[in-house]
Every structure is written in C-alpha cells, then in structure tokens.
C-alpha cells in the first residue's frame, strides 16, 4: 500500500514530447485509471513509474521515496503487461515463482504464496502447465498471479484486457474490480477503453498528446467535462457536437440558436454563458439526453428527420437530421419511430454542455 | 572520467565490436595492401608491412596478362550462372509442389530435401568422380553445372518454401474459384509475388557456387577450364615459389564479383537466411 506522487513529470524521445508536465497524487489503495487515445502518453507515464523508461524531467515518489533513479526491481512494484509477458518455457508455477526466487524467498514460503494466489485466481489446476497450453483468459490470470504473489506496494496494469475477446473482457473487468476490493493495493491502470475507465476507476486521468486533460471521479468527468476532448472521449455513444451555435439574449433569458434548434439555457448556466451573448459557441448534447416527446411546445423540444434506426435492445439509437446536421439520440425501446419520418425530440436542458469555439474549454 | 553509462556502453559495445571488426576484416585489408605493393617491398622485412609505401600495379599486370585469371573468372561465372538457373528452376517447382500442393508424403519429401543439404561433398566426390568419368563429362564445366545443384537445390527449396508460406493462401483460392489451373496460378500469381524470395535464393546459390572447391578441383584438370579458386591455388604456386603478389591480387579480384552481387542484395541475402532459419 503506498501513495504515488508525480511532480511535473515529463518525457522526451529526442525532440518528441511524449509526456508533458504530469502532476498527480495517487492515494493509498486507490484504483487510478489513465485513459486516452493511442499516443497520448499514458503507457509512457506508466513505464516511467515502473522504471522501464527514464524520466526526462520531474520527480516520482513511491511511498514518500523518490524513485527517479531506482531500478524497477527495487521499487516494490508489480506490472501486468498487455501481452502478459509470460516466460514461455517455464510452467505457470515457475512463472509466478520467478521473482520470489530471485529475491531468495525460501521454498516453502514461495509454495505457500503461489498456492494461495493461484487458488484466489482459480488457476490451481494449471500450475504445471506451460503458457502455450492455456487460453487467453487463463494466461491473463497467470500474469495477474505473478504480480499478486510479489505483494508489491503498487500494481501497474498496461492495457491487460485488450487482447481478450469482448465477453471475456467484461468478465475480467468485474473480477479485477473484485480483486482490488479484496486486496486493496494502490493500482494504476492504463487503457484506451473509456468504458473500462469508467467502470473500474476510483478516479480517472484523461490524457491527450502527453498532457493531463482532467482528473476526477468517473461520474464527475462524465457530468462535467472540462473541455470538448474529454466530453467527446468519455461516454458512449459519443456526445453530439454542434458548432456555430449562437448565443442570444432575450431579456433575462439566454438561448442557444442554430438552424432548426432554439434551446433555452438552464438557469445555473446563465451566468457563465452571459459573456458569450452575440457570439458563437459549440454545443454538446449526449444522445442519452435526447428523448422522444409528444409536446412540441415543451422547452427544449425540436423536430428532426429520422435517417437510421438502430435498435440495440435496451435502447434505440436514432440517427436524425436537424437543420443540415446529424445527431444521434438514444431513446426508449418502446418508441414506434420509423425511418424517413419526422420525430419530436426534447433535450434535457440542465445537461447541455457549452464549449468555447476557440479554446474548446467548457463554459460553466 | 566518462560518466558511468557511457563507460558501460564503451566496454559492452564499442570495444567488442571494434575487436570483432578488426579480426573479421583484416584479411581483406591484407589482400588489398599486398596487391598494390611492389615485389621488392613485399619481401623487404625492414618496412612496415601494414602500409603501402610505393603503389604498384605490377601484380595486377601479372595476374591479368600472365595468367589465365580472366579465363578462370569467366569459367566460374559460367558455372555459377548455369547451376543457379538449373537449381532455381527445380527448387521453385519443388517448393511450390511441397508447400502448396500438399500431397501425401509432401512433408516427408520436404524434410528429405532439407537433409540432402547436410550431405557434404567429401562423401560424394569419389563416387561422383567415377560417374563423371563414365559419362564423358570429365574436364568439362558442365559437370560442375550439373553437380552443383545437388547442394544448391536443397537450400533454395527450403528457403523458397519458407517464402511461399508468407503468401496468403486466399490469393490462390480466389484464382482457383475463378477457374485457373495450378500451372497458371504458379506462373502468373506465385512467381511475380515471390520475386524477392527468388532473388534471395538466386544470390545464395550464386555465392555458394563461387565458394565450391572440391568438385572443381577433382573434376577439372586442364588449366583453361579451371575455376578461380582452383586456378589461383594450383597455378600461382610453382614448386616452392609462391607468387604472393599476384596471388593476393587474384584473391582480391576473385572476391570482387561475389562481394559486388552481395552488396547490392544484402538485404535479400540476410532475409533469406533468417527466413530459412525461422523454418
């Protein structure tokens, strides 16, 4: 159990900046997720914490100890790699025991720890087998077991589920979360999958181009993204963005207007948006915040033309056209909507997101 | 003092590499240096032999004009090219047959051909000598052209088999569904796609052929028909007199064609070896 602190950590490969000014405190026992698209620097940061990459600038502390020049084996960490990195010529037992053997842990102690871990992960029957005899999911557990058996202060995960098929991934997510609740060690988890981030993290760090975009609890980031990138990255299906939306003031009220849409601004957002009156902004609205309505005069209601209807089972995704733009709405499965027809939609006004057209930062 | 990391790098990398390179390349420098020294300088023990003090083309003149070197060069080329062509043709067909048209026993045949590569010339040269003599191919370059494929075919087949492996089966299946015959697929689809592999195999065959000595020494006796290796060793040493100058010149210029071919196609050569070994 340990606290991991990153202070202004940066990484350069030649002239290329991979990570820029990353500062973060990961608390004791927290499950922290680094999420972002490929190349955003999340894996590089993880590897710097592990000691597999040199730190160009800044400092990293594990449990109040500065580890910039400490080799990986002395940092008291364990890592689960994307391709598991299991030693192919060694048995499952030997794979798990390797690190302990190197630390000269006595044999019966190794036996005990490997046995307990294997039991916890349900791989006791495989101890004598070699990795190539195991399925992807089983190999993943062995990789996990190898990390757990070391009882480190911090677990590092480098996209461990991305090589599994979809169903297995969902199952493993659950198991990993349960494991964390059971063991409770500080964990840092890297993924490009925002669903994994949302479901697993105590807190999430969203990264792009080597920089931290936002840090916070999943729901917080979902409800209050600080910029357009985060808003579009988190949440599935992706948020709808409408550019060139004008802010207009009518007396006390503010409206955001574009072709086919005239939406009133909720009271709590008025103050932040007021300075933008007369200017254009980018409007963001999540598909799940658009619902079908019967009342054309309700605030936030508008007509749209249905292009594609995709029933998913628990929702119906409707691809609509409004004033020359495409929007995706996620509506009730009971809807009788048909393609090539008009539909009456209503936006949940308190969940509208506004972004500065130039800086792309959230307004309010 | 150098920082620790740089010092480590020096001892772990630069120094060993330097030593290896000196060891591996020195003989070539020595060939070169000796070639261009005058005879007088060559046998003058007072001079530093590692440097050329007076450049001289006398050795080259001797080599090219007073020996049959150019003729030997031609002979070696002739044998190399003919045996490469024969081997490549046979290997291409065999590799395709084994690798793609999997028939009963194809696996065994593949392994059998592979093991042929292990059979050394020192086991075969005596029986082959009797056969060559009976076939009246004694002292003929064609004897070599026919015999060299015995060690060229196994390797080329093996190499090409590995290469064919990398061509997706779907391409052929698509063509077959369109009604093409195996032969057509072979000529029009496989061969064009395998050109890099064919190039690798061809270069390998070429260099292996230049390297051969025992068969060339055994089956060829007249001076005019000798290959470069045999000619240089047997004719530039008369009794106890070693004509080192021309000998080195011959060694240098005998290596040049192979080195040239190799330098242009190094990538293919290395790819060939690594591909074959992966098999």
């Amino acid at each position: 159990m340990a606290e991991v602190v990153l202070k202004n950590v940066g990484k350069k490969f030649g002239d290329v900046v991979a990570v820029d000014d990353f500062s973060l405190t990961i608390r004791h026992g927290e499950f922290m997720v680094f999420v972002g698209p490929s190349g955003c620097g999340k894996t590089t940061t993880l590897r710097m914490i592990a000691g597999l990459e040199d730190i160009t600038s800044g400092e990293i502390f594990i449990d109040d100890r500065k580890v910039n020049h400490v080799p990986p084996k002395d940092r008291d960490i364990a890592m689960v790699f994307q391709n598991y990195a299991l030693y192919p010529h060694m048995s499952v037992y030997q794979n798990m025991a390797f690190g302990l053997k190197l630390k000269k842990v006595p044999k019966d102690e190794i036996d005990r720890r490997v046995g307990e871990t294997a039991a916890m992960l349900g791989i006791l029957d495989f101890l004598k087998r070699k990795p190539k005899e195991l399925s992807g999911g089983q190999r993943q557990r062995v990789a996990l077991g190898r990390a757990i058996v070391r009882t480190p202060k911090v677990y590092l995960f480098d996209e461990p589920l991305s090589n599994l098929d979809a169903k297995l991934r969902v199952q493993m997510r659950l198991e990993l979360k349960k494991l964390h609740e059971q063991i409770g060690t500080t964990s840092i988890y890297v993924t490009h999958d925002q669903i994994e981030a949302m479901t697993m993290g105590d807190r999430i760090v969203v990264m792009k181009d080597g920089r931290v975009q936002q840090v916070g609890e999943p729901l917080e980031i979902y409800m209050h993204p600080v910029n357009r990138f985060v808003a579009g990255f988190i949440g599935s299906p992706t948020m709808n963005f409408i550019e060139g939306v004008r802010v207009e003031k009518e007396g006390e009220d503010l409206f955001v207007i574009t072709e086919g849409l005239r939406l009133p601004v909720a009271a709590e957002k008025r103050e932040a948006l007021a300075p933008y009156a007369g200017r254009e902004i980018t409007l963001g609205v999540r598909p799940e915040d658009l619902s079908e309505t019967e009342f054309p005069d309700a605030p936030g209601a508008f007509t749209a033309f249905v292009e594609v209807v995709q029933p998913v089972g628990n929702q119906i995704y409707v691809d609509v056209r409004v004033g020359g733009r495409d929007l995706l709405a996620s509506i009730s499965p009971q809807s009788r909507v048909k393609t090539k027809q008009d539909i009456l939609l209503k936006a949940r006004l308190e969940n509208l997101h506004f972004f500065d057209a130039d800086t792309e930062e959230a307004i309010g | 003092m150098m920082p620790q990391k740089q010092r480590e790098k020096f001892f772990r990398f630069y120094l060993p590499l330097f030593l290896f390179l000196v060891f591996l390349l020195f003989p070539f420098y020595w060939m070169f240096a000796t070639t261009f020294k005058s005879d007088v300088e060559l046998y003058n023990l007072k001079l530093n032999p590692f440097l050329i003090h007076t450049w001289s083309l006398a050795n080259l003149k001797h080599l090219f004009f007073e020996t049959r070197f150019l003729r030997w060069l031609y002979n070696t080329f002739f044998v190399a090219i003919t045996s490469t062509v024969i081997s490549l043709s046979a290997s291409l067909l065999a590799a395709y047959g084994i690798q793609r048209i999997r028939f009963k026993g194809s696996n065994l045949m593949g392994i059998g051909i592979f093991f042929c590569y292990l059979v050394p010339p020192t086991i075969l040269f005596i029986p082959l000598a009797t056969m060559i003599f009976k076939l009246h191919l004694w002292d003929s370059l064609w004897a070599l052209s026919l015999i060299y494929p015995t060690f060229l075919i196994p390797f080329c087949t093996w190499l090409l088999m590995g290469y064919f492996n990398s061509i997706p089966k779907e391409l052929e299946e698509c063509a077959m569904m369109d009604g093409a015959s195996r032969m057509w697929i072979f000529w029009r689809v496989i061969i064009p796609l395998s050109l890099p592999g064919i190039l690798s195999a061809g270069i390998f065959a070429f260099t292996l052929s230049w390297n051969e000595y025992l068969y060339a020494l055994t089956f060829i006796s007249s001076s005019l028909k000798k290959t470069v290796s045999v000619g240089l060793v047997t004719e530039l040493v008369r009794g106890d007199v070693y004509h080192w100058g021309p000998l080195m010149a011959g060694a240098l210029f005998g290596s040049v064609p192979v080195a040239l071919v190799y330098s242009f196609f190094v990538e293919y050569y290395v790819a060939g070896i690594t591909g074959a070994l992966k098999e």
Partner: protein
Amino acid sequence: MRSGNAGGGALKAPPVGLLQRKGVLGFLFTLPADIILLLLLAYPFVLGIWLSFTNTIIGRSGSFVGLENYIDLFHSDVFWLTAFNTVLYTVVAVFFKLILGFGLAIVLNKDFKGKGLIRAIVLLPWIVPTALSTIAFWWIFDSNFSCISWLLMHLGLMSHPIDFLGSPVNARISVIIVNIWRGIPFFTIGLMAGLQTINQTLYEAADIDGATPWVKFKSITLPLIMPLLAVITTFSIIWTFADFQLIWIMTRGGPDNATHIFGTFSFQRAIAGGHLGEGAAISAFIFPVLFISVVITSKFLKREA
C-alpha cells in the same frame, strides 16, 4: 417434392483429369528436383559405400574385396592420426565459433546507426570464396614474411618469426583460427535472427522481477534460443567435420599429417594417389557424424512442429 431422378439417371461428376489430382500434380512439380537429387546425390551416396568395399583405382574398375580397405586403414597410423585431427579440429573450432558468434550476435542485437552496414560487413568472411580468403591467411601465416610476426617482433615480444604452418601444433592452431574466422558470421547472423524473435517485454518483466543481466541470459535468452542454436551448431559440426578446401590449401594435411582430416586424407589417397576404393573407405567415416547430425536436427525440428 419429387426425387431428382425425374430426368432419367443421376448426374455424374465430370471425370477428374489426371493433372488435376492433387497427389499427381504436386509430385510432378517436385520431379526435376527429385531426379537431380536421386541421380546425383542419393545414388553416389550408395555408390560410395559400395566403392569402399572394392579395390577400384583410377583407370581400372575394381572388384569386391570386403573389409580389406577398412582393415588396412585400422592398421595405418596416419589414419588414426587423421581421425584424431578431425575430431580435434571440429570440437575446438565449433566451440569457439559458437561462443564468439553468439557473443557478436548479442553485441549486435540492439538498434544503432549503421546496423545494416555492420551486419553486411560481418557476413563478408562467409560470403567471400573460402579458397580466396584461405590464400590470404596463407600469406598472413607465412613463415618468413608474416605481418603478425613482424608486428610481434617490432613490439619486442618475439625474437624470430613464428613458424605458423611448419610445426604440427602451430599448423593445427592456424587452420582452426581460419575456420573460426570463416564460421563466426554463420552463427552470428543465424542467432541474431533468433534473438529478434524473443519478445522484448519478457526482459522487462524480468527487470521488474529483479533479474540481473546474467539471470536474464540464463533464464530467458538461452532456453528460448536453444532449438535454433542446436540446429545451427549441428550444421556447423557436420560442415567442419567434413571440411576440405581450407586445410588442403593451407597445409595439404601436413606437416607430417598433423592437419589431415578425413576429407583431405581421402582426397590424397583417392585422387592424388589413385586408390579410389581406399579413399571411399576413408570418406565413409564421415557418415556417423552425418547420421547423428540428422537425428539431432530432426529431434529439434519435430519439437518446433
């Protein structure tokens, strides 16, 4: 639904042409190679064994003499010396080729500027015709004018030139050195290819597990490269054991038969001496090593399959 026989007689599949049958066509493709290898490799292989049991000499076909050639050889001191030389030559040369070739492969196994060029240069001793590079070494090892002797004398480490090829021990060392020189590239390039196939993250996981470079080599690199190493070494053993041109050019098997190996001894008796039967018998002693090599290689190949 009516049965399909309404039209009168079930439809017959068109006869499959002989050339369309997989078995025949595939076999035909391999025919040219098969013919060449059968006639010029398999047949001489057997013929050689037969010849060793005859007293054939050049110019006159011989008759069956049973084990006479072999018995004569067993009574020959030169033969036993040759056998010893061959084993010594093979064991020492292959050992050093392995160590040095592997070492060079490890040194070269990182990305650096000019890697392609260095790799190409490293292969040169293997590419260049052996006879020609052997001639160069012949000159380097000259008893009077060797540049190595010159250097050592110049540095004051020696007082007279080394007689590289004139004394049995020196001659053996010299030919072994040349063999090593020529053979290193084969090991290096082959092993480099093998090292590349080892997943780099395995080493990173080992770093985290606390492995020193030696442990990483012993526990990861060595086990994983063993199959390839075994095959490469086996090839090297058979080729070194059955070597000819290097020794024939440098020493002709001398001095005093100190460097004769089976290949050169066989040539001397058969071609220079004319005793084909006897030469074939000598060559026959290469068979056991060939056989063992085949067995070992196939064991490793099967494991991969």
